[in-house]
């Protein structure tokens, strides 16, 4: 009986799903082509010895956009990445801002999460709404309001500092959500046990809560770093006359396309692929371990 039922189900699936599956697979195939072909073109054009980034007008394979080129007299003939001081400086600015953002947004996010998980009144929802609101605001509004505020109140002109503050406002919200997710799985009994054994509240925080949050602090730092480096909208408005790597890419695109941007793109793509693959591998290994533990 069961065998028959299974067989019946099997045939129905074979008949019913076949077409659907083909269409679905084709659709997914197209979708991934749509995602990757533009990126592939961008990567390919970085190796083309053509002044304007292109793949259709191929002028030979070159690495000159990555390395630059000099003639025998030592004069720069092709401006590649190493000669492009604005990009390098922009990268430095990006790193400085990202570091600042990590230092600001993690304490803010952690405090917010600790407060909200302990708050059991109606005010909690209001506070929660206010603290996550920067995530839901358009980036340009954040950039604009921060820029005006710091100039009106403290006479601070837009620059790296205001960009860092503006980014921290919403990256802090992301960090807070990550910490809250972690804290929801916390076993309060451990803290209670610490108190019962005579530990001070500070010791309990340092030896129990903080180690429990440790992995999340690391993840939040990585996410904050990436968000900060990648951010364009907010930074663009808050940074004034200064620039980061990403705003500089934007500025270059406005004045025409340059293969040096492709070269940067290749580096970004390479780093991303390595990071994403290792993330997926790590996650799978962890999942397998959990499965193995469950037996």
């Amino acid at each position, binding site marked *: 009986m069961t065998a028959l039922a299974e067989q019946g189900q099997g045939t129905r699936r074979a008949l019913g799903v076949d077409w659907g599956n083909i269409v679905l697979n084709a659709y997914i195939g197209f979708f991934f082509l749509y995602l990757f072909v533009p990126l592939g073109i961008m990567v390919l054009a970085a190796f083309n010895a053509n002044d304007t980034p292109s793949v259709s007008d191929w002028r030979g394979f070159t690495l000159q956009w990555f390395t630059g080129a000099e003639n025998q007299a030592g004069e720069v003939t092709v401006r590649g990445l190493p000669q492009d001081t604005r990009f390098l400086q922009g990268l430095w600015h990006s790193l400085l801002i990202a570091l600042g953002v990590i230092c600001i947004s993690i304490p803010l996010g952690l405090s917010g999460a600790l407060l909200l998980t302990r708050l059991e009144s109606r005010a909690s929802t209001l506070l929660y709404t206010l603290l996550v609101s920067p995530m839901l605001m358009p980036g*340009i509004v954040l950039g604009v309001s921060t820029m005006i505020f710091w100039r009106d109140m403290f006479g601070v002109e837009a620059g790296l500092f205001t960009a860092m503050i503006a980014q921290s406002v919403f990256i802090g919200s992301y960090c807070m959500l990550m910490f809250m997710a972690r804290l929801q799985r916390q076993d309060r009994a451990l803290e209670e046990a610490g108190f019962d054994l005579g530990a001070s509240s500070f010791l309990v925080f340092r030896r129990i809560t903080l180690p429990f949050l440790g992995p999340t602090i690391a993840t939040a730092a990585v996410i904050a770093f990436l968000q900060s480096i990648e951010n364009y909208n907010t930074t663009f408005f808050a940074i004034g006359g200064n620039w980061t790597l990403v705003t500089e890419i934007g500025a270059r695109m406005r004045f025409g396309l340059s293969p040096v941007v492709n070269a940067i793109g290749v580096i970004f793509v390479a780093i991303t692929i390595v990071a994403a693959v290792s993330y997926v591998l790590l996650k799978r290994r962890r999942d397998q371990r959990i499965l193995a533990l469950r037996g």
Partner: protein
Amino acid sequence: MHSLYRSYGAVLASLFLGLVALWLVALIALPQLNMIERAFVYESRGGAAIQSQVDIDRIYQRIYTIEYDIDALRDQAEGEVAIGVAPGAKIGEDNTAGVGIAVPSATVSSGTIEEQIAALETEAGGLKAQLVDLEVEETRLLEEKEAASGYSLRNFTTMSSLHLRIFGMTLVYSFCVTLICFVVCYPIAYTVAQTANRERAAMLMLGLLIPYAINELLRIFAWTMILANEGMLNTTLDALGLIDMAQGEPIRWLASNGAVFCVMVYAYILFMVFPIYNTIETLDRNQIEASKDLGASLIRTHLRVVLPYAKPGIAVGSIMTFMLAAGSIAVPGLVGPGLHPDWFSQVIYRNFFEAGNWNIGSAYSLALLAACTGFILVNMLVFRVGIRDIAK
């Protein structure tokens, strides 16, 4: 609150409270309030008042010149009277004539000295009368400027019909981008989330993660390369013989709103995929099986089982996509800049960095913020989700 103090002690709890307060007040609330205040303060450039001041100064100068001329002419006349010319009766006569005609001073020089003086005096009289009017007008303009500098809605009401249309179009386009993103990516999110094969699911996930993690600007850059006049799309069409680039007829893709639209869908679609994926992933596959076993069609299964379950994810995806699209400065600013009609974010940018009118800029960003907040609220109502479902 009490629980916070009990768990972490006075010092740490105060530190946490202080940090949250700092974040809430100094980083979130005050900057927004400051922007809102600016939005409601009309910054009068006082153009009309300044103009009337200039006019008044010019008239004073003219009157002074005329009086100087009259004095000079009188001196001259006295000299001539001494010689015995110019009887007094003639002066009175010409005076009346002068009042009637109001001869311009430039042509007066042809008449007798008395005529000239009379004409000049008439002009001075006229100017003085004008001056009174102008000074009244100036006080009125200055008062108006004072009054306008208070709180008012003028920053919004002076929004030109062009800007209003751009605002409306931005919202409509953003909504369309959101809708298209949802339609395109729902099957993808569903498939990736419900793939039973772990290897395959991991590969699909990787395929989504990589483009998602690559910078927005680079994704836009890749598309600009394709859509450029000498780009991939035109050369492909040329190779297929559909257009002839040698004849100089490349299609100017970048110069259209459609290009902005396409690139935007590409740039923000993954912000729709992941939230939907996250919710569908937790859906028990047995529910779908049960629905199928009970004879529901594919569409019915999705309408009755999967979609209702995925509501929070759809809400989050829509909110993120809409917010990114409406506030996007990168896509409209970098895809064929200046070749297509403006996006609202560009109008805001210009008010801040080109026109230097920060108050109008603030008003416009407030309008954008209000529109996005409205969209979030509508989404929360339609999908019946709370703020905690949206941001988690």
